[in-house]
């Protein structure tokens, strides 16, 4: 051997038991759908069918909302300290079953096991721990006012972080005394169904958490349901706008966490080797299927060439392949539809005249894959600089001064996140004041913590998840 090749190191899958068929989880039980319809859910890395999951129609949605309404009375009047115990117990069981959950997340979603194992699942548990802590301390979160739960929350989550988005939605909702009906994305229902088992395991009162399945029509029926008091949606800007139109004039409270086209801004004095890691983590984490991905690289002209040389060399070391392999850096794209969208937009980039770079890498025959991709010579007026690709595709642009960096970074319909890389503290603060983005990372990227609020400006949505701010979306504040 002259080259050191790492032998395959796949995580064992025996720990996971996936049923052939699932029901919707309503009122504490897995029930067959009134619709009698099921859809298959697959492993995007192999296209192998994992299970059949029910489609909830309007009557199933109604049943779930009724179960949540019925549970609301006792759940919301329970002593907050007791509610906290349930939320805490959920967090503990997620930790106990973390490996099983991580393997299932990777099988169903295609993300590398090292991410589901080290990031998604630990963070999901951390969110439940964090909000368990708030459950009996709401008077400190909102001094001088009393925080009352809203009622039934309808929650629709995306496929890129199935379990983590579930945690972001369910933890603050139930900690504050609401009950929920959650619909996972149609391509990634399995960890949510495992979560339903965890609700049973911890003895959560029936109806506090209900999980229904289906695609857009199910989601639409859920958010439209008249007995829903709160809608929380994470997903595309297009669907977010439809929901907002639908809810206009109703009593329903709404939070939206939508798309992004984040700028990752590298100044000439940045620690370049760590900036390269930050760029890689910003755009290739979860194959770039991240709403806050650093998909636009803005690099100061004086170091652009040097930095891109380093970045290209680093790309060649990324390991694409079996997501269950512990050494895999780039996993599978979540679905054929998403892969087609990425291919289409990359085609547009080439047509627009941007220069494409992809490292040599073997693409597996089955499954949905896209190699890490960099476009250089990109202008603001290119579509790949404006539209969210939601894939492992980075558009590189240069700037000369701080003012130009801010102008270009803000020149987007979105405003979810941004990154600043510089050794100069005052420049970080100056930039952070001017960037119109909900999260601004300094000398790092894609770092998350339950105590830190997350959310967007402009077409990236409104409302915050995480932190004390995340409680506000699930309470109405009244006089004490």
């Amino acid at each position, binding site marked *: 051997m*002259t080259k050191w090749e790492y*032998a395959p190191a796949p995580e064992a899958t025996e720990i996971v038991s996936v049923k052939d068929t699932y029901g919707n989880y309503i009122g504490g039980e897995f029930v067959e759908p009134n619709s009698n319809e099921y859809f298959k859910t697959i492993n995007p890395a192999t296209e192998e069918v994992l299970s059949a999951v029910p489609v909830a129609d309007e009557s199933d949605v109604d049943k779930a909302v009724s179960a949540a309404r019925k549970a609301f009375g006792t759940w919301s009047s329970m002593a907050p300290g007791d509610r906290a115990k349930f939320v805490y117990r959920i967090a503990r069981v997620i930790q106990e079953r973390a490996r099983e959950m991580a393997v299932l997340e990777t099988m169903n979603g295609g993300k590398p096991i090292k991410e589901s194992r080290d990031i998604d699942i630990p963070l999901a548990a951390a969110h439940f721990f964090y909000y368990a802590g708030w459950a009996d301390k709401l008077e400190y979160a909102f001094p001088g006012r009393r925080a009352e739960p809203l009622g039934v929350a309808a929650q629709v989550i995306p496929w890129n972080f199935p379990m983590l988005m579930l945690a972001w939605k369910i933890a603050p909702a139930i900690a504050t005394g609401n009950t929920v009906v959650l619909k996972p994305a149609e391509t990634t229902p399995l960890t949510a169904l495992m979560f339903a088992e965890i609700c049973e395991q911890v003895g959560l009162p029936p109806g506090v958490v209900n999980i229904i399945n289906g695609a857009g029509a199910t989601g639409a029926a859920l958010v439209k349901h008249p007995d829903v008091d709160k809608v929380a949606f994470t997903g595309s800007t297009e669907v977010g706008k439809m929901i907002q139109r639908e809810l206009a004039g109703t009593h329903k409270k709404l939070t939206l966490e939508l798309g992004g086209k984040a700028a990752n801004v590298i100044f000439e004095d940045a620690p370049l080797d*760590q900036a390269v*890691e930050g760029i890689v983590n910003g755009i290739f984490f979860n194959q770039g299927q991240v709403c806050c991905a650093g998909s636009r690289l803005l690099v100061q002209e004086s170091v652009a060439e040097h930095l891109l040389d380093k970045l290209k060399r680093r790309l060649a*070391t990324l390991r694409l392949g079996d997501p269950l392999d512990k*050494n895999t850096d780039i996993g599978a794209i979540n679905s054929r539809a998403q892969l087609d969208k990425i291919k289409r937009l990359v085609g547009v980039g080439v047509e627009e005249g941007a220069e494409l770079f992809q490292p040599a890498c073997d693409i597996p025959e089955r499954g949905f894959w896209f190699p890490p991709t960099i476009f250089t010579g990109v202008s603001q007026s290119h579509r790949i600089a404006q539209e969210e690709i939601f894939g492992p595709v980075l558009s590189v642009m240069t700037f000369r001064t701080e003012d130009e960096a801010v102008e270009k970074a803000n020149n987007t319909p979105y405003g979810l996140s941004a990154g600043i890389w510089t050794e100069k503290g005052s420049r970080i603060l100056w930039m952070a004041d001017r960037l119109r983005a909900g999260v601004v990372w300094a000398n*790092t990227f894609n770092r998350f913590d339950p105590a830190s609020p997350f959310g967007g400006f402009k077409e990236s949505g409104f409302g915050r998840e995480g932190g004390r701010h995340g409680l506000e979306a699930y309470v109405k504040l009244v006089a004490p």
Partner: protein
Amino acid sequence: MTTPTKEHSLGLADRLGGSVDAVGAEARAAALSTRSIKKDSKMWALELAIRCCDLTSLEGQDSPGKIRQLASKAMRPAPGNPEIPSVAALCVYPRLVKAAKEALAGSTVKVASVAAAFPSGQSPLDLRLEEIERAIADGADEIDIVISRGAFLAGDDEMVFEEVSRSVEVAGGAHVKTILETGELGSYDRIRRASLIAMAAGTHTIKTSTGKISPASTLPTALVMAEAIRDFQDATGTAVGLKVAGGIRSAKDAIRYLVIVHETLGDEWLTPDRFRIGASSLVNDLLMQIDKQKTGFYSDPDRYTLD
């Protein structure tokens, strides 16, 4: 002093410059340490780690007898198993170079001597250079020098540059490894800076630690030094080696260093010419892990010789 050339001048270190973000460097090193190395790739790494080993004894109590025993271990780490290669070098104090050279005669194992007022470097430069000359005269193939951390921390980069370049000069073609003693430098920025100065001054290898202070070598330190080596090669075309030393006792740790070198500098650095691990007790754990790979069981530690 050697005439500074374009490649070898302090200005080169200035030009390469750069800073290191501590949080980012540590996160990257931690991420690389989760690589899962199994089966054939593990066997290959274990064997490579033996070949890259500088078997070291740097104690006040070292005697010619002790060094002769260690030399035997260096040549035949596993006496009963001819498939196990020799280590790269035996690393000793200057007074013991002769004994080591005699004991290793006819083998591939090099004699490395620490010199230049190891471990503190706090002696006049002419005495330090003389120590190098004496070690070379006694037969040392390689010299491990230390930089003057006191001078470096006081901002006297010129002095560090000069002591390294003159050491390389008096070593007269012998391989010179420059110990930065990273545990005394206080920041990754300074570790990078010291790496660049030593390389600009012509050292053949940069080395983390003397093993005499804590912390000794760490994974992020090795990463930062490897990145400096890569930048230096990009700028000059010169490939400088890396040696990690101090506190590396387990095969697991050794493999983590190999992963960092592999993914930062590439396969070309996975050779004893460009990568060394300085250690006194690592070899036996490597041997034990090799047997574990072959048989599936851990053997009795007494099956591995202690010299």
